[in-house]
Each structure stands twice: as structure tokens, then as C-alpha cells.
């Protein structure tokens, strides 16, 4: 495994989300190929004050 820093400062929508909900969004990799959509969904979650919700992949499915 590649070891890494854990204390990277959050930026942008990620920082706003953490400040709003006190935790990072829970994701299972659904938007690995589409960060723009993911970030826009986080922005909506912040605006609506509803935590971002992503369903877990079904058994046997890979993204």
C-alpha cells in the first residue's frame, strides 16, 4: 500500500460539507468517473441541509 498523509486540508465543497455536517460524505465509489456530478451533489446536500446519501453497490457489482 502507498502510505500517505491523513491531515490534508479540505478544500472547496469538501471543506464546506465537513463544516456543515461535521464529517465527510459517505461514498462507495459510484462517481469515480464523474467528480463534477459528485461535487455538485455535495453542493446540493449542503444547500438543502440533507446529508449526501449514496446506496452501496449491490452484491456482485463492481463500479
Amino acid at each position, binding site marked *: *500500500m*502507498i*502510505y*500517505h*498523509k*491523513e491531515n*490534508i486540508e479540505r*478544500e472547496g465543497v*469538501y471543506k464546506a460539507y465537513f463544516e456543515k455536517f461535521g464529517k*465527510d460524505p*459517505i*461514498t*462507495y*465509489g*459510484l*462517481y*469515480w*468517473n*464523474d*467528480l463534477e*456530478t459528485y461535487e455538485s451533489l455535495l453542493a446540493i446536500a449542503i444547500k438543502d441541509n440533507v446529508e449526501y446519501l449514496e*446506496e*452501496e*453497490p*449491490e*452484491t*456482485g*457489482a*463492481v*463500479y
Partner: protein
Amino acid sequence: MSSINRVSQLYEQLEKELYSSLLSTLLSNEIVINDGKIVFNTNNTKFFDKEIRSLTTDVKPSVSKIKTELEAAIKSALDKEVIEFTRVDVRATEISKPIINRILKHSNLSVSQGINLDPLFTKIKGRIVALVSKQGGISLQELRDSLQKLIVNKHLVNGYFERWTYDIYNQYRRAGANEIRKKLGLKFAIYEGGEIETTRAHCDKYAGLVLSEKEIEGWKDLPMWNGRPTEGYDPFIDCGGYNCRHRWRWITDGLAAILLEDQGDGPKDLNIEAPAITVTLGNEQRFNEYVNDSEVPELVKNAILKLPIPTEIKSKGLRKGSYYSKSTNSLISETKGGSRVFFHEYGHHIDMHKMRNNSTAEDIQGINSRSINMKDSYSKDLDLIKEKYKGDTLGLIKEYLKTKNLEDYRGLSDIIDSMSSGAFFDTYKMAGHGKRYYKSDKNNKYYESYAQIFEAIARNNKKYLDDIREHFPNMLKFVMDDLNKIANDLP
């Protein structure tokens, strides 16, 4: 022992027979001997003329045996070629039958015409005349010793026929192979035969390399080299020229792709000559367009054609996003992701198909040799990454990726994400599946890496593929090998 070596042995036997026949001749009382010396006179000259002519009859059975053995050697070599071709294409057995018959007809005629001992008899007679013409003649013992040296010790027959035999054997073998490969549509060959002390510089340059049909054809236009026939040179049949030990081993486009990659050429090169293949995947036209794009290597198209396609290929599934479900064999690829995401999901389909079908133990990855090889390749590439980006590895790779078109490099980013167990996405906010995904199944890192590398091969973006090769050479080789095995029905 191969038949061609047996021919050499028969030549040596023939030398002994010739010498033995001549010894019997020398015991004849028809030879005029003066003071213990054979001298040059009309009587002796006529005698040797007659006796040497009769040698043809004496050794006729041996010559006939040599012809049979050489014909058998050529047939055996052609049969071996057919066996090799069968490993590449099962049609080879049927296709080759008329070709082999035609080649053998030609070769048998050439062998019959080629084994002509007259020049050797002339040489023997010339030597005898020269010896007896010496001042005072020559003793019987001296004549015997001299003939033994000429015929047996210096291998008169073998020396004379060796190159001809070797060339006729190899040329007919290569001619047969060339005809068969044309029928099978094979356009790439490995120049086989290794390198020895006497290997020509030309052969040395190409030994072990893969060449295309056009490149081989191009040898005719190269500047002349030592040993190349001055007239009628055919590189498919003559290879490096006289006495050349090399041959063309014809291979599939798929195997050529892997070997060319090692030679420094990518799969893109295969598009030059490969026949056009059309793949039909389903009702949604965009998927057919992606896979039939001219940039997609034939290797990928062939592999896709060889495997059953997913039960459904759609833009929208019951759940959100793009995914491949191995339980329902469904491929869902959202329109927004285009060909990049489609090939990624198709990579999952191929990987999962191989897992389901390769062995009973495949369902839980980690047991069979295929998955062990993938894990090993992954591990080696992980070591390379850590070595390449020492220190703040993820920070350095993030900086590297910022210099690229990030949309094109999401696959590379995701492999790095898998290698950091999702930290590259979660912490560094780079494209990837994230910690929860990689934690949910310890094999997800292998599945995603396979799919991302398949996507890079299939899209065939030269720059991106070069970067994938630079960062993950072992996994790229693994996936290429996998595709080649699929495309060529190899286990």
C-alpha cells in the same frame, strides 16, 4: 535425431562406399604398374575412366536411400510446420493438405535432379590423373592414402552437398509455411533461429524480432549483404540467404501485439494490416460505434468476439451510475461516461468472465494461477510507483496528474487510489473509488486495475497508453496476455 541429420550420416556412408569401391578397383590386375608405381599411360587412363563410370552403378542404392531420406526430411519439416500452425489456427490441418502435396511434388523433383554425383566423379578422376602423372608415377599405397584423404577425411560428398541439402530442406519448409500462413491470413512472424558465431550481421539484427509481412517484403530493397542470393531473392523463402539457419514463425496479430509492445511498438501498429472486424453488441448503436472505432486494436475486438457478450448492455440500470453486475451479467454504462466508462465496464465483464470460467476456484479470487499472476503484477507495479514517487507519493502523483488532461487520466488515478486503499480519492480528492469501496472487498483493487488497464488498451490513446505502460508495465502485460489468450483460444 531429425531426418536432415540422418541425410548427413548417409552422405558419410556414401563416402566410405565410394572409397571402398575404388580400393577394390585398385586391386585389379588391369592396372599397369612399373617398378611398383602406377604411371600415366593410355591403358591406365582408360581403366580409371571405365571404373569411375561404374561407380554410379555401385552406389546407386545408397543414392536412392539419400533421396528417400531427404524427401522424408522435407515432409517431416512441413508436417512440423502444420502442427505449429494448428496451434495458431485449427483450420491449418485442412488448409495445408493441398499445399503440402504440391510442395512435396516440387521438392521430390528438385531432390532427384539435385543429387548428381558426376561432378564428384570428375573430381576423383582428376585427382587420380594428377597423381599418376607425377614424375615416376605413384605407389598404390600413396594413391590409396590420397584418395582416402580426398573422399573420406575431407568429406567429399558431404562437403559438396551439405549446403545444397540444407538450403533445399529449409527453402521448401519455408515455402510451405509461407503458403499456409497466406491461407490463414497471418501477417506477422518471428525471425527464429537464434544467433551463433557465424550468424550474418543482417540476421543478427533481426533475430528474435517480430516483423510484419510488409517489413519482410522490404528486405528485397535493402542494400546487398553477404550471402544473399544475387538473383531471385525471396525473403520469405531464403531468409538471410545461403545456408541460413533462420525461419519465419508465423503468429497471430494478438501475439504480435504483445511482442511488438516489448519491442517498443504499441497495439496501435496492428491496425495497419489487420483485417477489419465488426462487433455487434446490442441495440444501442453507440456501444457498437465505440467498439468498432478504427482506433480500437484488433486484439480487443477479437477478444470481445471470442467471449459471450453480457446479457444486457444498457445506458441505464435499476440502480444509479455505471457498473457491471457479475450476478446478472449486466453492463450498465451511462451515456455521459462515453467510451471511456463503457470500456472500463467491459473490462470488468472480461475479467469476471475469465474468473467464472477459468477454474472452479475462480469465484473467490486469490486461488488460481491467473489471479496469482494478476496479484503479482499489481504488487510489482505498486513497488515501482513507490520507488518512482518517493516521499509524499500521493502528493507527487497528484502534481503529475495536474499536468495531464484529468478526464483522460481517471483510470490511472483510480489505480493509484486502489494502491492507497482509497486515500487518493477520500483525502487527496482525486478520481477513484474511495476507501469504503476498496475496503468492502479486498479484491476490488485488482478488479478495478484490470478494468482501467483494459480501458486504456481499448481506447488506444497513444500518450495515455504510454503513461500506463510507464506506471504499470506488469499489469499492462498481464491484461495484454489475457486478451491474447482469449483472442487465440489459448489456455
